[in-house]
């Protein structure tokens, strides 16, 4: 892929998967948890 060996290409894949994992985790952990009552100002 892009002329590089698979082991190096996987670094890009790991980067993208980490970003996706953070989005999925934030969505799942937010579900069911009520709005935090300690929300402050800005």
């Amino acid at each position, binding site marked *: 892929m892009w*002329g590089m060996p698979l082991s190096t290409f996987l670094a890009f894949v790991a*980067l993208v998967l980490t970003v996706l994992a953070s989005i999925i985790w934030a969505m799942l952990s937010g579900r069911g948890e009520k709005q935090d009552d300690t929300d*402050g100002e800005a």
Partner: protein
Amino acid sequence: MKHPIFYLSILAVYFVFLIIVGFVTQKKTKSSSDYLIGGRKIGAMVSALSFVAAYFSSVVIIGGGAFGYKYGLSTLWIAAINVLLGCFLAWLVLGKKTRELTMKYNAVTLPDFFAKRYQLPFARIFVSLVISLFLIVYNVSILKGLGDTFQVLLGVPYVWGVIISGLIVLIYVSFGGYLAVVWTGFIQALIMGAGLILLLTNTLRVTGGLSAGVRSLSQINPGLVETPGIWGFPGLISYVLVVSFGVWGMPQMLARFYSIKSNKAIRTGTIIATIGGAMAFIPYLVGALARTKFPELANVDQAIPMMVSHFMSPAATAIFFVGVIAAGMSTFSSVLIISSGAIVRDLLRTSFSVQINEKQEIHWNTLTNVFIGVISILIALKPPGLVLTLTAFSWAVIASTCLAPFLLGLYWKGTSRSGALASMLGGFLVSILWTMQKPPPFGLHGFIPGVASSFILLIAVSLASKDKISFLR
């Protein structure tokens, strides 16, 4: 250097802007809690991007390019693991727990948290001393990086680079405290991002795209496109662990979790910090591809500056310059505020019972910031040999002292007072003694044995002792 007046003018505008932020945030700082952690009211975007800005200093940008140039594309794994461990998992594991427990214990600094979590006043004094002493050394290394950056990128003498950038940070941190640190950090992360994206697009343009660049690199040495390639697994893995897990024990990074306003903001911040942290891969990639254009560089630190000076337009170059300077300044300011908090709040006010009210504490913090900042600048102008040696592992000593008792203090009910004490002292001593060996045993950075021994001591001594400290409910 072409267009020096143009670049310096852009930099001057940026500096004036930072000072204005310092004055504006000063008006919002009413208490010592505001000064040290922004009154726990910082939003997700500002917390996350200021975290990223504090993580990546100018040394990482220029040094990351040098690593990429030297070892090739395997260094992309450094960025990938940095984002996974240093950003995503750091926020996921530490964020919510840190915020909740520091609120319960009413702790605004790391030494304060240790003293209250373990009912161990000695920990406040010991950790404050370690933090204030070794963060000053760390300050010197950041200022040295800034001075080098001014010299290499702008042709400004090293001494003036240190003085100018150091004094600007001192001004805005002294006036605006933590609020100034995070708001300038937020802006600095945006500038760093813009500068790095411009660097990447220009690099891909001149190398004919990623595929063509990788082919050219492979022709120079196939080891430069493979993993672990010419670096080898031991070097790559130990380096990745050091720069990714180190963040977990650094007080200036953990402060972002005390100060964030809600658990919802932590969830949003986790995504933003992970995406923001992803820009870490750019210096390594550009450094590696720079070898296709400049295969015979004598000094690998010149990899990125050469790409910038040869292939970027004056406007793009100006943004990149400001971005690199911003990276160093954001780290310096984050460290400065933590050092003054450790000295004034933890040592003077709490440990030595100096009677000062809220307003006086802000003034004392301001004076301490100026004192530490000036000392750091003076040492950085001509660092003695010992300081230069210490800079290489100052942050590792802090992380080895703090990481295990902090992480297990958040999650493990079985921690004991004597376990925490053994862990802090053991991690501190092992990391120092290990690094003083020349060369270090097994080629390992002092951080790895320091943190490992700290974890082992905390678990073993806690299991063997009976003075367990339960969580505050």
